[in-house]
């Protein structure tokens, strides 16, 4: 009986799960298999030679392969941490600003904020590469007019990655502000009014009501922000090519360099698998943290 009932369900699920299997699971399984092989991307899979965990040993080893990979891994982690740490609080702050009804212009401000997300990255990259020019760029000229110290921006290994983070924040914050506004609209006005009647000031209302009730929105935003940040590629490829001194060489760009440009498919796959594992662990840790917090409440 149960068997007969499951058949239509399987039939209806088959197209979707079949597509997922073909376009997600098979490529993932193939990448994992290739990460255990010595293989040139320019040759057929039949030329792949099993090397066990050697590719993983190499990418974490002391040679140039390992040093470059570890630099890219750290750069990606720093880029992701900085992006999330800046975007989330900023999106909440902007969300509160455009959600309030005390002053007019909230909808207009929301549109302006979201518009940055719609600008193609190629345009953003071109504009920011000029804005960041140490000698000719307007950012340093403005800093000079204000009597503030200038920065080398993309032209120094100390500041290049942070400059790419700023570019990312500028482009993405509007999208996350919209998510924050969506979360804010879900908070019942009656709860906030009750808190006001009980004598809670704006800071207390934010800390004890708004922020906790935005928990799910923040969790979703954090997951999306992490995934977006880990996948950063275009600004690096378009502006810095990973330099100077590999300071902006992030994993996606490095995997492209190793796997495609140098045709080292096995090493590139091992890097991709490591990136995937790091992402899965990070997201799982985030969910575990959120669940623990919820259980604590």
């Amino acid at each position, binding site marked *: 009986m149960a068997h007969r009932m499951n058949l239509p369900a399987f039939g209806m699920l088959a197209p979707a799960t079949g597509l997922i299997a073909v376009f997600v699971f098979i490529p993932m399984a193939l990448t994992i298999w290739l990460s255990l092989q010595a293989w040139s991307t*320019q040759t057929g899979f039949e030329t792949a030679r099993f090397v066990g965990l050697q590719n993983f040993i190499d990418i974490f080893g002391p040679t140039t392969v390992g040093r470059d990979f570890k630099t890219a891994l750290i750069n990606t982690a720093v880029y992701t941490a900085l992006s999330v740490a800046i975007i989330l609080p900023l999106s909440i702050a902007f969300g509160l600003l455009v959600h309030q009804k005390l002053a007019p212009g909230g909808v207009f401000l929301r549109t302006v904020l979201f518009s940055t997300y719609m600008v193609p990255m190629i345009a953003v990259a071109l504009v920011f590469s000029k804005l960041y020019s140490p000698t*000719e760029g307007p950012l340093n000229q403005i800093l000079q007019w204000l009597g503030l110290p200038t920065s080398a921006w993309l*032209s*120094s290994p100390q500041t290049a990655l942070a400059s790419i983070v700023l570019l990312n924040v500028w482009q993405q914050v509007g999208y996350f502000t919209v998510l924050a506004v969506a979360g804010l609209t879900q908070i019942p006005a009656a709860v906030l009014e009750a808190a006001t009647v009980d004598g809670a000031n704006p800071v207390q209302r934010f800390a004890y009501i708004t922020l906790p009730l935005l928990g799910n929105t923040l969790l979703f935003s954090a997951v999306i922000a992490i995934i977006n940040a880990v996948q950063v590629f275009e600004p690096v490829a378009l502006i810095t090519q990973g*330099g*100077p*001194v590999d300071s902006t060489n992030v994993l996606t760009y490095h995997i492209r360099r190793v796997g495609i440009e*140098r045709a080292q498919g096995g090493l590139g796959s091992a890097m991709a698998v490591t990136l995937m594992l790091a992402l899965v662990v990070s997201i799982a840790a985030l969910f575990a943290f959120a669940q623990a917090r919820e259980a604590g409440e």
Partner: protein
Amino acid sequence: MAKLEAAAAAYSKMHPDTKITVRAVPFGDLLTTLRSSGSGAHGVTIASIYDAWLPDLVKNQLVAPAPQPIAAEAKANWPASVVGAASVGGVVYGVPNEIDLYALNYNKALFAEAGIAAPPKTWNEFLADAKKLTDKSKGRQGFGMINSWAAGVLHPFASLLVSNGGDLVVNGKPTLDSKPAKETFELYETLIKSGYSDPAMATADANTTGPFLDNFVSGKTGMIIMANWWESALKAGMGDKFPAIATASIPVGPSGDKPRSISYSWMTVVNAKASAEEQKEAWDFLDWLNGPQSGANGASAMGDILMSMGILPSRNSDVSAFAPRLASDPFLKGYTETLADAKGFPGVLGGQEFSESLQKTLEAMQFGQLSAEKAQATAQADAAQILERNAK
């Protein structure tokens, strides 16, 4: 691009069965494009490549060997060094076209302002001039280095190295542990430590845009070392101020005997996975495009295309056909003077990885992360490891 399309159209008119479309790919994306979308049976039939990539592309069986008549034509009409760069294991794989080398580019107005009468001929003069040209109060550097672009970082360094009697690679082994290499690393360190080169003014990319170009065209950099194809970028950036730029041979180092430069060439190759018919049509077209019948006055159509961009053609008959023009071009003079003594960039397996590794080490030195001594040791060790691994 327009001239190449015109040449292709002219050929198609004579050969109606041959259809040719031209696609431009930025240099920074070219190798990746060839490896990803250009290498299958339905990829591009003909590709223009940089000679350092050839050994790896041949190893991966992406490019077809030239048919015997084309190979014989190349050997008979191009300098042996250029044919050598288009060959692997004695087999010719491409039809050579352009040759590029490096020279000192300097701003005559800044030289006059600093009281310098002539371009430097030795490293001592070079350092002395860099010192005179540097004026931090005006945001001016004496010599402009490049970062964030592998060839841009590596080739000027390699040119100074060969002008000091050294080499990057000999017989497939790196020779960055030599005395001339030590002196070249030390020259870079002196330029940086003395403030004659500012790494913050050095960022560039493979399309030549960025602060490196901005600073030279706006008169904030006194001297640079760059390739001849750079002329069109300079003209576009400087407009009517371009005549202020002059060229000279690379200064000779303490261990060098005469001005030298690194050189590299470009060639057109044919996709090994294209059908036999497509390959034949491709080689026929390349033979015509690079032959003396396709252009005016004994020059090839390709030679004409290259000269329109300030690029030196490498075919002997093109060099003869354009000799008066090459001799009268003051910008190209600094390049053509050194051509006979140029050393080809080493064609080795893993050449791109080797270049990127040395780029990183030189950049680390530019930004004070490595001393000259440490940079030299790192560069040699990394290069040995990379070349050995790729040779397997």
